[in-house]
């Protein structure tokens, strides 16, 4: 009863156990005809190579450059994002929330790992980790500090806990010194973290 299992020195062998187990399961499911290996490869390729935060960056850049689009995005984000061809799994109902000089938005999923896949791809490990999930709702400024982000003490911070199938996308503030920039150029300023709310977009001099 009183065994001290789970020291952290066998992480490596645990991983290889998992590796073997995943392989075994995949073989069983393929042999039974439940899955088609080509479909698996396509799924992996889609999320590894095609769907990622570049999609969201284009949405944000367009909202910065085009006031009518921005209004549509903030009113009903799902069709507005669909205009750029982004839609589907884990993005069936998207809400865009806008940062202002007095309001900063942050997105978390305390209960699991809900994240707007079509615009941001799959979430990074930290987004799914216990430290982020436990602290973002109770101490958002402390979490921002972990990211090296300090906001003015008077800024309101609004945390969105994704408890339903609604997925949130933060529209960060457009950096100064970007007047007249094209959407394509603006998109280079939009980081993944700025669309989750744990970071700010790059400034023009970061690109130089």
């Amino acid at each position, binding site marked *: *009863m*009183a*065994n*001290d*299992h*789970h020291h952290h020195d066998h992480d490596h062998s645990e991983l290889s156990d998992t590796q073997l187990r995943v392989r075994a399961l995949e073989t069983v499911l393929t042999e039974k005809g439940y899955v088609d290996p080509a479909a698996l490869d396509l799924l992996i390729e889609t999320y590894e190579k095609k769907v990622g935060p570049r999609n969201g960056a284009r949405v944000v850049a367009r909202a910065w450059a085009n006031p009518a689009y921005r209004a549509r995005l903030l009113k009903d984000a799902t069709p507005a994002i669909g205009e750029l061809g982004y839609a589907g799994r884990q993005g069936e109902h998207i809400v865009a929330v806008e940062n202002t000089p007095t309001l900063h938005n942050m997105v978390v999923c305390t209960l699991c790992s809900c994240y707007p896949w079509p615009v941001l791809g799959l979430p990074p490990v930290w987004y799914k980790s*216990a430290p982020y999930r436990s602290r973002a709702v*109770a101490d958002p400024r402390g979490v921002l500090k972990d990211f090296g982000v300090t906001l003015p003490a008077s800024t309101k911070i609004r945390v969105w806990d994704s408890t339903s199938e609604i997925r949130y996308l933060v529209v960060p503030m457009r950096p100064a010194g970007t007047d007249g920039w094209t959407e394509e150029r603006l998109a280079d300023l939009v980081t993944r973290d700025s669309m989750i709310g744990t970071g700010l977009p790059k400034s023009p001099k970061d690109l130089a």
Partner: protein
Amino acid sequence: MNGAADMGGMDGFGPVVQERNEPVFHAGWEGVSFALNMVTGVARLWNLDAFRFKRESIPPPEYVNLSYYGLWTRTLELMMLEYGVATPAEIEAGRAIAPFKKAPRAVTAAECADMVRCGSPYNRPAPSPALFKVGDKVRAKNMHPKAHTRLPRYVRGHVGEVVRIVGCHVFPDSNASNLGEDPHWLYTVRFDGRELWGEQSDPTVRVCIEAWEPYLEPV
């Protein structure tokens, strides 16, 4: 802190498993771990609340995966490091390398026997009269301190009734951070199970906790 120790009302840990003819200690080292914690207490290297705070600060994945006395040994290591009783190199080597900075004074077997017999009472003279009386309705405050507290999360925000005035006792929230004993009135407060767990829960259940006066507000 809302750490892994605050387990009241959590699901998922499974059934309570009893061991037939369970021995007091399951291995020699468990008895040693137990005794080491007693003697370091007698030596007043730190206070019990500080020890509890350190124990509950252990990251939840580690906390829930350590055996009971494994948790004690781990906490003792951390306390020895924090209070300068041993260096990381000494813990690693398993022996003393540098002498302790204060003059050592070994705790004797006789002192241990005294400690077992007398314990260490926690009641203190009262600085002021008690605010609440038996029968008063009180609400446990919604508080989430980052340091040690003995107010479990599952009662916070809920209304109960004072059923006993225990006395004026050392306040763990202060003592654990070495901010002094700061004694406060201590009450036993009874909550209806449905108040804690909702209308759907068992109507025959009552839960009592001990709550220091700063945990409570009048209703």
